[in-house]
Every structure is written in structure tokens, then in C-alpha cells.
């Protein structure tokens, strides 16, 4: 895809990057000159990822704790968040517009709804996978139900909760690229501005990939920090 333009690029490089850009090549020179225009969309993208994931996490945690006490709620919650998850994201952005208008609110409401299924299921599974004898021992030592949840079950479920958080975050970085259809900017809008220019698409898309990787690393580091007991071996 970029082989031929690259050859041209090397010849034309001394003459400036415009020629490369005009030939729609992959132009490092152009990228260096124009990188500044990507910072704002990148920050918007970070915002469009962090805010929905945090809200989605808070909601899912609340719902998972509720469903942990009242098991019968699990089915309905999975069903409803499953429906949210199945709605094509672009459709969701358009469907929400009459209610929430163009902008961040629409984007965030839609993006939150996509994290619910993943996060709820992972938190619920994490809580359920706590060994029965650990729970029994905790109650038997005189911890109250609330203490068992916060001091024993949730900490033991951290690895599974974090795994859910990683999937939800990567998914959200990807979906946030479509938030442009809700009028919320982000790297997606930068792609659309000049979607035929390869350098532009590569930079905007590449930044989204890097962003996803950075978040993943961040959460993984956080998890290792939170679960020293998982690494301890005889």
C-alpha cells in the first residue's frame, strides 16, 4: 500500500512534505509537521474512554453487588445489558440524539451501555469464583455479610474484575472512534476529516491503537500492584 509512494517520497523529500502529501503517501515529514492537530482529538478520545468506563464500572459494580445478594436479578440484568451490547453503536448514537442531542452526553451514554455486559459478567463471575470454604471461613470467624463482601470476596475477585476492565477499556477505545457520529469528536473525527489521506488515517488510527495499549498496560500494572498474593510462590 505504501511501497510506491515511499519510493517517491525519498526522492521528493528535500523538496518538502507537501509533494508526498499530494501523492497520498505515508509521509513522516508531513506527520511531524502536523502532529499538533492530533492532540486535542486524542485528549477527547481519552475522555471518551475514561468517563464511560468509570461510569460503567460504578454501575456494574453496584448491579453485581445487588445481584450477589439477590441471585434472581442476574438473569434480567444480563439480558438487558446484552440487548444494549447488541445495538450497533452508530445506531445508538443516532437513536439517542433526539433525547440527549449532539455531543458528549450522547456518546457517553451509548459507550457506558456497551461496558455494562462485560463488566457486570466479570464482576459477577469473580464474586462467584471465590471458594465456598473461604466464604464459609469468613462468616464462621464472625465477619458480617458486608465485611465478607468488601474484605474478602471483592479483593479475591480483583483479577477477574481487572480482566473485565481491560476488555471493556479496549472495546471503548475502539467504539469511541465512532463517537464522531454523535458529534463528540475524538480521533474518529480526525479520521473522517480526511479519510482518503493515508498519513492522516494511519496517525489517527495508530494513536487509537497506542491509546488502547497504554490503558491495557496501565490496568495490568494496577492489577499486579493490587494483588501481590497472586505472585507469591513458595
Amino acid at each position, binding site marked *: 500500500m505504501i511501497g510506491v509512494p515511499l519510493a517517491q517520497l525519498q526522492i521528493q523529500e528535500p523538496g518538502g512534505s507537501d509533494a508526498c502529501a499530494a501523492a497520498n503517501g505515508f509521509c513522516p515529514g508531513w506527520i511531524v509537521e502536523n502532529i499538533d492537530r492530533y492532540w486535542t482529538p486524542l485528549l477527547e478520545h481519552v475522555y471518551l474512554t475514561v468517563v464511560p468506563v468509570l461510569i460503567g464500572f460504578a454501575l456494574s459494580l453496584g448491579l453485581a453487588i445487588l445481584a450477589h445478594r439477590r441471585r434472581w436479578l442476574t438473569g434480567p440484568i444480563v439480558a438487558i445489558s446484552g440487548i444494549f451490547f447488541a445495538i450497533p453503536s452508530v445506531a445508538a448514537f443516532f437513536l439517542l440524539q433526539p433525547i440527549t442531542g449532539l455531543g458528549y452526553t450522547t456518546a457517553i451514554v451509548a459507550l457506558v451501555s456497551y461496558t455494562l455486559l462485560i463488566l457486570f459478567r466479570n464482576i459477577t463471575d469473580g464474586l462467584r469464583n471465590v*471458594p465456598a*470454604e*473461604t*466464604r*464459609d*471461613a*469468613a*462468616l*464462621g*470467624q*464472625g*465477619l*458480617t455479610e458486608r*465485611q465478607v463482601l468488601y474484605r*474478602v470476596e471483592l*479483593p*479475591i475477585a*480483583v483479577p477477574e474484575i481487572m480482566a473485565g476492565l481491560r476488555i471493556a477499556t479496549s472495546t471503548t477505545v475502539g467504539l469511541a472512534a465512532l463517537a464522531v457520529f454523535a458529534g463528540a469528536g475524538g480521533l474518529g473525527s480526525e479520521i473522517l476529516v480526511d479519510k482518503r489521506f493515508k498519513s492522516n488515517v494511519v496517525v489517527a488510527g495508530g494513536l487509537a491503537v497506542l491509546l488502547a495499549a497504554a490503558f491495557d498496560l496501565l490496568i495490568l500494572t494496577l492489577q499486579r500492584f493490587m*494483588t*501481590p*498474593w497472586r505472585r*507469591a*510462590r*513458595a
Partner: protein
Amino acid sequence: MGDSSDRSTAEPLEFREVTKRYPGAAQAAVDGLSLQVPAGEICVLVGPSGCGKTTAMRMVNRMIEITSGDILLGDRSVRDRKPADLRREIGYVIQHVGLFPHWTIGENIATVPRLQGWDKRRIDTRVDELLELIGLPAETRSRFPSQLSGGQRQRVGVARALACDPPVMLMDEPFGAIDPINRERLQNEFLRLQAELRKTIVFVTHDIDEAIKMGDRIAILQEGGKLAQYAPPAELLMYPASRFVEDFVGSDRALKRLALQRVRDIDLWKAAAIRVGTPIAEAQAMIADADVSYAMLVDEAGRPKGWLSDRALAGERVTDDLRSPAHPIVDLDDVLRDALADLLSSETRYGAVVDERGALAGILSLEVIQQFLHAAPAASATGADLLRE
């Protein structure tokens, strides 16, 4: 609530007509169970699966609610207590231990003290004390459960249960998941610990041998949660109350009784202990006075050398002519079952019993053991007594 083991406390426990009936179940899980556990004793609940032994135990700390009847801890009904408060005062040890994997050993042991709001210094002191008590090195406190062996984890489980010096402990098949060699070691360790701590303990097992070894008293439960018999181990083995108990304790219950007693616990036969050079008349008088018609040659210190032959007793003074060596030689402190094994594997029917100094103390024979098995059991014969030497 004391925080050191030398101010150990214990309270009596009483089941009064305790019944547990699950909705929809045709049979009660526990049916009118009444028994008393004196303070400082181990009561073992034993029986086949489905006999309600674990259910009965779990009603003590209200992990399972009582349907009718009552359980008294000291003189207070457990039904009047808030479950969480009650449980903090009752040690709880279960088969799979259930240590908290995300807490260090120190934090695990400190579970109840932390719930009770002890200050850090007091907790640290107590954790050190308990690690020493269970024989784990002090540096274990900063390790995680996954770094310990099964036996070590089980010890930590016991330490955690003992942290606030509870008057009562509940133990549900605590050694069930441990291999046989380590299980025996843990059982012995625990009995030694108990000899010191003297807690009131409800101990659940399905293994009658473990019940006999661990229990001061044994409650045998049968299907439907009915109490079949409640008695000290020796009495249970001697006088099974029903066909069910007889079957449950096994056809080898005579052997099991022997495992509970030492040679010194039974009436031995007296033998003539004769030194070389004893005048023959004196020797004859000693033989006439003994329970055994053969005479034992002993050295200056009274140690048995062998059974004297007829020729040795034919002259004016006793010579050292032997018909057979003094074999087997058993110790007063040997467990009767082991002494019996020695007797059976030797040619002679008589075993020379020696005291701590090696001097002849009496003669053990199959007849002696048989007589013992037909006599009434000693009241205090329990596995714990054997370790208390």
C-alpha cells in the same frame, strides 16, 4: 477475653433437644439431640454421611439456625446472641481451612482480633505467640497461604481460630484433607496443644479411629440425626448401645480398645525373678508364689535374661541354664496393641515387661490381655491420655 494462652478459658456446652428440619425434607437433619460437653473436653460427633453431624456442629455458631430446642454456651443460649458476635467468640476450623488467599499469614491469624478492634501492638504480640504455639517460624507471618504446605495451612487455621482465646472451638474434619502421615502428626500436635489449652471442642469426623483418638467423649449419630450413643471411647468400644454402634465402631473394636491403653494400665502376671546362685529352696518358694510356673533369670539390676530351664533348678543353687531367651521384652509405656503385636510375632506366649530402668515389672500374656478386654474399661482412657505422658 484473655489474650494470652496462660489465661485460657473454656465453657461447657449443652445441646438441649436440638432439632433441625429443612423445609420440604421428610426426615429431620438433626433430631432431638441432647448432650453435654463439660468445659475443656473434646466431644467428637461421628457417624456416616448424612447423619447430621456437621449440621449439629454448625448450629452451635449459628451458621445453621436451630429449628427447635436450644444450645447453651456456658449458661447463655446461642439464640440470644447476634450471629457475628457469637462467632467471634467461637473458634472455627474447617476441612479446607479456608485461609484468605489475599492476606498474609499474620493477617489471617489476626482476623478476629482485628474485627474486635485490638490495637496493632497487641495483635502483633498475639500473632507471634500463636505462630510459636503452632511451631511455625516467625517469618511465616509475612508469607501468603499459597506459599505454605497443606499441613502448615491447617496449623495456621487452628491459630486463627485460637486468636481471641475462644472458650469453645468447632472443628469440622480439620485433618480430613491431609495425607495419613501428616494427619497423625497434626492430631498428636493438636492433642498436646489441647492438653495445655483445655478448650471445649466439638470435633466432627466420619472416621471412627480419629474419633477414638481425639475424643474425651464420642457422640455417634445415625441417619436422621439421631444420637445412637454418647460415651467416652473405652466405654463405647466395650459396651456398644446398639447394633448400629457395634457395626459402626467395627468388628475390631477390641483392638481399638487396646490402642487406647498402655501396658501399665492392666494387671500383669507376677513371675519369679531369680538371680544366679539363689538357693534352690528360696527359688522354689518364689516360683510357688508367682502367677507363672516358669521362672525368669534376672541380672543384678533385675533386668530379664531368659526363662530358666528345669536343669538350672535341679542343683542346690540356681545356674544360668536357659530354656529360652527373654523375648519379647515390652515396656510399661508401650501401647497395648503394639505389645500384643510383639507377643503374636514371637514364639513364646509370655512377654517380659520392664520398667524405665529395664527391670522386670511383670509378665504380659494373651490371657492377661483377654482378661483385660472382658473387664470394665478404665474411665479415663482416651487418645489424649496416651500423649499426656
